[in-house]
């Protein structure tokens, strides 16, 4: 019986025992004249939980451990000379056994492997029978125990609600586990990377050319893992993007908040929000297809040589993507400035623009700066636009008309390929990911601090 079927059967059992438990409770309340402690439903839930949860735990545990256990048992049964092979050869043999089990039997010649595959399959069958038996026994035990416990004075509601609260708490800790998972996974692989390449070479080196020699005398095997060109490229494209997004976004927010009529605002704000909803692949395609060639032609007309993968094209489109970000964050903070400040300025004879420039914006400034920092963090983490529109070779330049590469592009290039997982080339991607994660984390924390610390408290 496959595990999915088993889980479905378990689910059906839970539902059936819910009704059985609820029935018993209803009968109890009718017969003895004692008032039931909780509603009958809770007694049903109690029984269903005791039937389903322990068995579910067993099935999940089994699913995690089964493959490894069976594989190690089969390895022990292999002939002597195979068992003592070094780890990677053994791994290849294990792969062959797994393939043989998965229907590629006719391609495998060695009798030892065919034998091992047969043993594997037998063990799989035993294990599934054993699993069904165990799960069934545990369910039955749970049912017996809980069914016995149903009495009029039994506090079923407390038990069930306690479990529900525990479940809710477990779900809320998933966020923590995600952060820990991200940190650990990126850290582990980065530490392995830093065992081959020194950290200061990585962080301060000027040459990014991630090749690794397969043989000692291979031509072109000298690699450089200096990430400075990547950092400069990321910085350049983000600077162009900010130069587009901040003025346009801020002025749009100011206009929508201060000058626009309610109808204009009702139309303009959602339209700008649409820019935020467009997937980044679409922006990347637009940049590669339309913007980059247009910029190149404009450059040729003006006598400049613009690369077809210029930082300007990618930065421009990224800026368009970030406009709604800056605009909506600034809008919130500008609206939070109380009307009394504006009225005071008007009373002194200031025009509307003077009020905005000299009173409202300085009051909303911490929030706006926080918003801009978050937008910068979004820009440096953006992947698809730069992968499709920016280049792949690491030039160290601040000229936006040339092609540069960014951290995120390199992460994608290094990992979307046929590389062996442990070579420093692919581990470099994790080191870059670590830098990216820490940088965005730092920007977010600073943005939060700036907003909290400098925000004026208006009544």
């Amino acid at each position: 019986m496959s595990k999915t079927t088993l889980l479905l059967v378990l689910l059906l059992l839970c539902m059936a025992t819910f009704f059985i438990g609820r029935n018993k409770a209803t009968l109890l309340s009718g017969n003895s004249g004692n008032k039931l402690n909780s509603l009958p439903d809770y007694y049903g839930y109690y029984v269903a939980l005791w039937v389903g949860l322990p068995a579910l735990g067993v099935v999940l545990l089994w699913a995690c451990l089964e493959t490894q256990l069976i594989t190690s048992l089969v390895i022990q049964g292999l002939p002597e000379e195979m068992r003592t092979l070094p780890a990677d050869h053994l791994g290849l043999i294990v792969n062959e056994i797994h393939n043989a089990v998965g229907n590629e039997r006719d391609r495998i010649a060695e009798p030892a492997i065919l034998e091992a595959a047969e043993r594997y399959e037998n063990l799989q069958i035993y294990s599934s029978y054993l699993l069904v038996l165990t799960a069934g026994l545990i369910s039955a035990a749970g049912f017996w125990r809980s069914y016995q416990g149903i009495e009029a004075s039994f506090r079923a509601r407390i038990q069930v609600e306690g479990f529900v609260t525990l479940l809710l708490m477990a779900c809320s800790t998933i966020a923590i586990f995600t952060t820990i998972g991200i940190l650990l996974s990126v850290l582990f692989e980065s530490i392995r990377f830093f065992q081959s390449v020194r950290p200061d070479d990585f962080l301060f080196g000027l040459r990014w050319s991630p090749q690794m020699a397969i043989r000692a005398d291979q031509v072109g095997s000298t690699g450089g893992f200096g990430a400075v060109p990547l950092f400069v490229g990321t910085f350049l494209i983000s600077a162009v993007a900010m130069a587009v997004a901040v003025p346009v976004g801020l002025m749009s927010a100011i206009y929508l908040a201060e000058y626009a009529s309610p109808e204009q605002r009702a139309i303009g704000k959602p339209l700008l929000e649409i820019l935020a909803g467009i997937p980044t692949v679409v922006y990347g395609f637009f940049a590669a297809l339309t913007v980059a060639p247009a910029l190149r032609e404009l450059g040729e007309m003006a006598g400049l040589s613009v690369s077809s993968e210029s930082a300007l094209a990618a930065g421009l489109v990224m800026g368009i993507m970030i406009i709604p970000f800056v605009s909506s964050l600034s809008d919130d903070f500008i609206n939070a400035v109380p009307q009394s400040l504006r009225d005071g300025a008007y009373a002194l004879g200031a025009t509307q623009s003077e009020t905005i420039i000299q009173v409202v914006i300085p009051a909303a400034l911490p929030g706006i700066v926080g918003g801009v920092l978050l937008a910068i963090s979004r820009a440096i983490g953006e992947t698809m636009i730069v992968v499709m529109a920016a280049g792949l070779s690491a030039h160290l330049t601040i000229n936006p008309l040339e092609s540069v590469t960014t951290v995120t592009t390199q992460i994608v290039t290094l990992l979307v390929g046929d590389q062996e997982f442990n070579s420093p080339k692919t581990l470099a991607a994790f080191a870059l990911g670590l830098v990216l994660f820490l940088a965005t984390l730092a920007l977010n924390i600073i943005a939060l601090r700036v907003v909290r610390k400098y925000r004026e408290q208006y009544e």
Partner: protein
Amino acid sequence: MNSMNKQTIDQVNASLKKRRAAERRFRWYGQASIIAGLLALLVLLTSIVHSGYGGFFQTVLILDVKMDQGLIDPEGHREAAIIAEADFGLLLKQSLYDMFPDVRERNDKRQLAALVSNGAAQTLRKMVLKDPSLIGEILHVEVAAGPAVDTVYHGDVDRHASQTDRSVSDRQLQWIDRLVSEDKVAQRFNASFFTSGDSRNPEQAGILGAMVGSFFTIIVTVLLALPVGIAAAIYLEEFSPRNRWTDFIEVNINNLAAVPSIVYGLLGLAVFINFFEMPRSSPTVGGLVLSLMTLPVVIIASRSALKSVPPSIREAAFGIGASKVQMVFHHVMPLAMPGMMTGAIIGLARALGESAPLLMIGMVAFIVDVPGSALDPSTVLPVQIYLWADSPERGFVRLTSAAILVLLAFLICMNGLAVYLRKRFEKRW
């Protein structure tokens, strides 16, 4: 004192003109920014529609094909196995050779044969297998045209460029022009765009595989992110004590919402694929990664929805004797549900358009089959768009834009649904 007052008011009056001009300029800057943003949106959409419109249409050649019995079924047994093995491509080529009898050279013949798509033979095969009585007749069929006809018909070929700069040779241009003048080239709705999987030939490629893959991935994301996110939000908002630990969790969630999506891809690669050894490229792993990414968004949106329910509802529930869990699940949650659903739909719309983390976990292979389950290797629509954008053939530009239009249509529907839900069910307390 009068003279001094007069001086001040004169100064003020003198500066008024400049200040009013500055005011008008400033206001104009604001309007120009909004117009610039909307203009960018307009340019983006029109360029995509312009290049993608043709992708929904397929160029077909209308040919008279002689279904020569000698080539298809020489024995005349009408056995399906023998018919299936026949070389239908040869029949198509023969009909073209018949139309242009002056083509003799082998190279020229090959160029002539290239006017028909590689998949056209399959169309013929299916027709004959369905109705073997067609053998021996002369069929008037519409078959998919090859890339050469496609590009010329859509006007993508520069006739003034020299032959070596073009993908279509001079002779091919002549033949195609003649076919067009004889009304043997037409446009039909490209149904195979929606019913076939990926292919190396642009005229045969479709988005069905990608759409099914996206569907499975989103299902997995919804099943994981929604319950867990709502449960976490309920706990954090209603049950948790307000101490440093929960503050830490809250800061954590806010940070996770702002982490770049590619880092989630790295997490998926290192943990799910390497450590847990889940099948690479499957919608299951893709859904897991996307649900981790959507979780902070769902939690934040649900929390604000729960916060907006007024305390009086909670107090009233306690007043009639409900326990805390009953109060939350029977009274507060139904009222907060519209807000939660709106936030969830917006988060899912964002996940639908994500491609960077899925690139990391391997959903970037060339997969022709339509995935049958959530464990088969597959790709998703945004990644399919990325793959096609990388292809060198000219025909793929149209397909990429058409696929983008399909994706945008889905996103508009989802966001529209979210806006509708918000308008319809939102209560102002």
